[in-house]
């Protein structure tokens, strides 16, 4: 039976408070956690060690979420990493574009409880709740 400790979540979010909240919650749930402040750092970390899943903000400095997805889909090493978007934009065009670029799912941060976000990740990874 898969357990959270067998998986690594990479949280790519430029808002420090949100990044740390997610990292803390995933850590308390038992996941291995990596964090990245922008898309370039996330790509560098993923190339060094593949995470089990990527939580990806869309609007970020240096390299945004859509660019990360584009680069991931062109990279054989990264294209199979499941991605869940983190967004506070009520802009379905950007979300649709991201889903077309390969993201598996998304959460609107303002609307989701942090426990439910963790549950979504567990569901995606096949970890029983």
């Amino acid at each position, binding site marked *: 039976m898969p357990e959270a400790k067998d998986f690594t979540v990479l949280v790519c979010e430029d808002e420090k408070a949100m990044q740390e909240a997610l990292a803390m919650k995933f850590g308390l749930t038992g996941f291995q956690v990596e964090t990245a402040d922008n898309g370039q750092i996330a790509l560098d970390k993923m190339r060094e060690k593949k995470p089990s899943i990527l939580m990806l903000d869309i609007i970020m400095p240096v390299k945004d979420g859509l660019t990360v997805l584009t680069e991931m889909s062109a990279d054989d090493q990264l294209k199979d990493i499941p991605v869940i978007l983190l967004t506070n*934009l009520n802009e379905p065009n950007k979300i649709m574009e991201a889903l077309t670029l390969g993201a598996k799912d998304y959460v609107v941060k303002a609307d989701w*409880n942090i426990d439910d976000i963790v549950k979504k990740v567990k569901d995606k990874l096949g970890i029983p709740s």
Partner: protein
Amino acid sequence: MTEKIQDTDDVKSEFVALVSHQLRTPLSAIRWYSEMLMSGDAGELNDKQKKLVKEIYRGTKRMVELISALLDVSRIELGTFAVEPEETDLAEIAASSISELSPAILEKGLEISQQYDPGVPHVYMDPRHARIILQNLLTNAAKYTPTGGKISVHISKAEPDNVKIEIADTGYGIPTDAQDKVFTKLFRANNIKAKDTTGSGLGLYLVKQIMLHNGGEISFSSVLDQGTTFTILLPLQTKAPVRKGAPLSSFENPTEALS
């Protein structure tokens, strides 16, 4: 000149979306941290601490909903909200909206009756608009009806080409001198009997605007201390032109507003 107006509207729309994003981001963080405190992720809280954190959480959630409502108002006024009509089963949306009210209903011991006449056709409209209309009206009915009161929902066909929805409550009613302001922005009836009048004050304004865009009508009758009935007429085929844009999404969370 028309192009200039459109450019200005685009800039305004983008500005509102950006401000909304910038406001919702720190609020999301506050909300998550208060959720984690309530869950005991930083150690067990005593009852007083739990109460304080719960207030932080509720206040934050309310602010997020207010921002969503303001964003929707802006989108409606600029005409930039999405309209994606499809065959919409109003009875199904009404029933699911009522089930979402369940915790609040149970707490207040409200009696809910639902009557959906047979053979009422589906309405061709954006189902998200139907959901906002029904959720807002039902939330208000539950909020402004005292413990042990009743709410009824009746959906029927109205000739020649409309569907009628009536939402009636045995609540506090709307004071006569406030009735002409019901659909204005930030309206809140000064009814001292109502225990909780929290909310954005934009719900009914949004409902009215959505109705107008769809070519429908909304009216109400209300008697103090006896209750209020809202009546909606929706055309079977929406008059709102199909449009890409951001969806309207706000509604007042019933369990937060009533608990």
